[in-house]
């Protein structure tokens, strides 16, 4: 009897310990950054002098961008892609935001894998992302789901391949110089 009680107690304690351990995720000291990061389980962060860098999964990227807007990062600055090629995840989408009122920069890095990677579009949160997402699609072939007009922007419409991918060679165009054979 006593033994049984003891085991039950230990089990209860263990459950309680687990419950208390789970929410004890370390959060950044800065209240604004904590408010952005806290609801997103996959988010990790780094802090430098004048910028915060947040890494997040593609699934939580859109809601994190929305949280950033609510927490003062109202100015859309930049969105670009990076191809890390042999690393996993292969691609990364980098969103840069700015807070005018309390000057601080926020960089959101989203890792995404596969030959036809998909990331949710943030054009409904930041209308300015429109052209930038088109550029990233054009040059990296990253599909932004929910984008209203995902077409090529810099390259011709009938272009094949995505030029800024690492497996896309720089290439060359042969040029025929006039009277080249006479030069010896």
């Amino acid at each position: 009897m006593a033994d049984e009680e003891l085991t039950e107690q230990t089990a209860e304690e263990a459950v309680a310990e687990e419950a208390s351990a789970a929410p004890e995720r370390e959060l950044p000291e800065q209240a604004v950054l904590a408010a952005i990061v806290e609801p997103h389980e996959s988010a990790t962060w780094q802090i430098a002098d004048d910028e915060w860098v947040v890494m997040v999964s593609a699934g939580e990227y859109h809601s994190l961008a929305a949280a950033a807007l609510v927490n003062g990062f109202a100015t859309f600055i930049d969105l670009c892609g990076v191809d890390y090629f042999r690393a996993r995840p292969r691609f990364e989408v980098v969103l840069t935001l700015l807070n005018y009122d309390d000057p601080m920069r926020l960089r959101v890095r989203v890792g995404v894998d596969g030959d036809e990677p998909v990331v949710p579009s943030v054009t409904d949160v930041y209308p300015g992302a429109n052209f930038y997402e088109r550029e990233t699609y054009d040059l990296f072939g990253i599909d932004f789901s929910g984008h209203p007009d995902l077409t090529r922007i810099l390259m011709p419409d009938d272009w094949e391949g995505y030029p800024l991918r690492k497996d896309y060679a720089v290439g060359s165009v042969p040029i025929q110089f006039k009277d080249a054979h006479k030069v010896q």
Partner: protein
Amino acid sequence: MSDKDTTEEQQDAAVAVEETPAVDAPMERGEAGRRRLHEMWVAGTEERADVRHFTDEGAQELLGDEGPDVLAIQRGTVVEDDYEFDDSVDAEERQIINMGPQHPSTHGVLRLQIELEGETVRRVKPIIGYLHTGMEKTGETLTWLQGPTNVTRMDYLSPFHNELAFSLAVEKLLGVDIPERGQVIRILMTELNRVSSHLLWIATQGMDIGAISMMIYGWRERELVLDFFEKVTGLRMNHNYIRPGGVAADLPDGWEDDIEMLLRKVPEGVAEYREILDENPIFLDRTYGVGVITPAECRAYGVTGPAARASGIDFDLRKAFPYSGIDKYEFEVPLGKHGDVLDRYHVRIAEIDQSLGIVRQILETMPAGDYRTADRKVTPPPRKRIDESMEALIHHFKIFTSGFQVPAGEAWQSVESPRGELGVYVVSAGGARPWRVHVRGPSFAHVQALPVAMTDSLIADAVATLASLDPVLGDVDR
């Protein structure tokens, strides 16, 4: 912090974002003067009253009582390529015209698909890419030291800012410190570049709205500044002067005299422009309340620099994130109020004065010392050493052929270019060449914001609006 607090804070923040003050109606300012001009120039030639209702207020009507569908199209979040005529509008009243890519006032090869109803612009779609040469891909094949040669050709009207942003980003990864004199030379050149770029803007803006003489005057003073650039760097444009590790060479002897000449002649020229334009009724009529962008639109679309400050956003990267010791100098951030073309003109004129003020302070306090870092990993040995030492010669050769290695990592650096926030994002894999170079050009965001500024205004104002945002297509297409 409890959950409740967080939600309350978020709600507060949301309210703060929404409560961005709207831009004042341009008509409120100088009503009497406006009426006088109107009587002098326009009375008797008015358009129909119903057209005036749409057009005279400019694009600030954008977020008015249109439905969400129309709003989405105006914002550019929904783009309709295949145009279908509205039932309510007679087919003859709407037409699509293409402005560019070879139009003289599109500042490069930009194409605007404009849908007109009479003379009123209803929809605009900017089409870019005509100048795309894959410079970001090229950047991955050049060494870190060759990088400035590449980026300086992007925004070709402010080459020093491109070079500075790239060099600062690389130096962030390298962790090298630049001697004070090198930093001050960088500030001197970039601020003079701001002057020359704004002078060119006044020239082209004037020409685009009919003040042809401004074109000649603007180029005249700009040429003086470019002569100084040529003396220092050897080239009028595309200098490759600011490099990772410092600058390419020290200032030439007698540079103080040239700067004094510039500080004397450029303000004289600017005073002349103000005499031509400030009270000019045609100029005022073509710029007053034209091409309005509200502060909220500036934030959403990433409109930065003088265009954002003309809308009343008090933000300058030189104040908020000072680089290269620019915070040592005293200068003011001129602000506009209405976000129209006229305010952008006033802001840029005031910025010329402020930049010349910084140059004057530099002239008085230029420190002595080295113009590039002494870190031999980055900087080649001095010229004299090369004459006496074989190792120094090899060292010099290796730096300029193989380049130097930069620790792996990623860095973002932005500087306040004459057009706005110019950001460079570099990723290094630890090699002698960048893994990725991305340049965030201010013009790219400005071209994207054109529909916001142009919609529901007159077609004649389209050119004035386009010119006032000062896009450089080399920076847009890269």
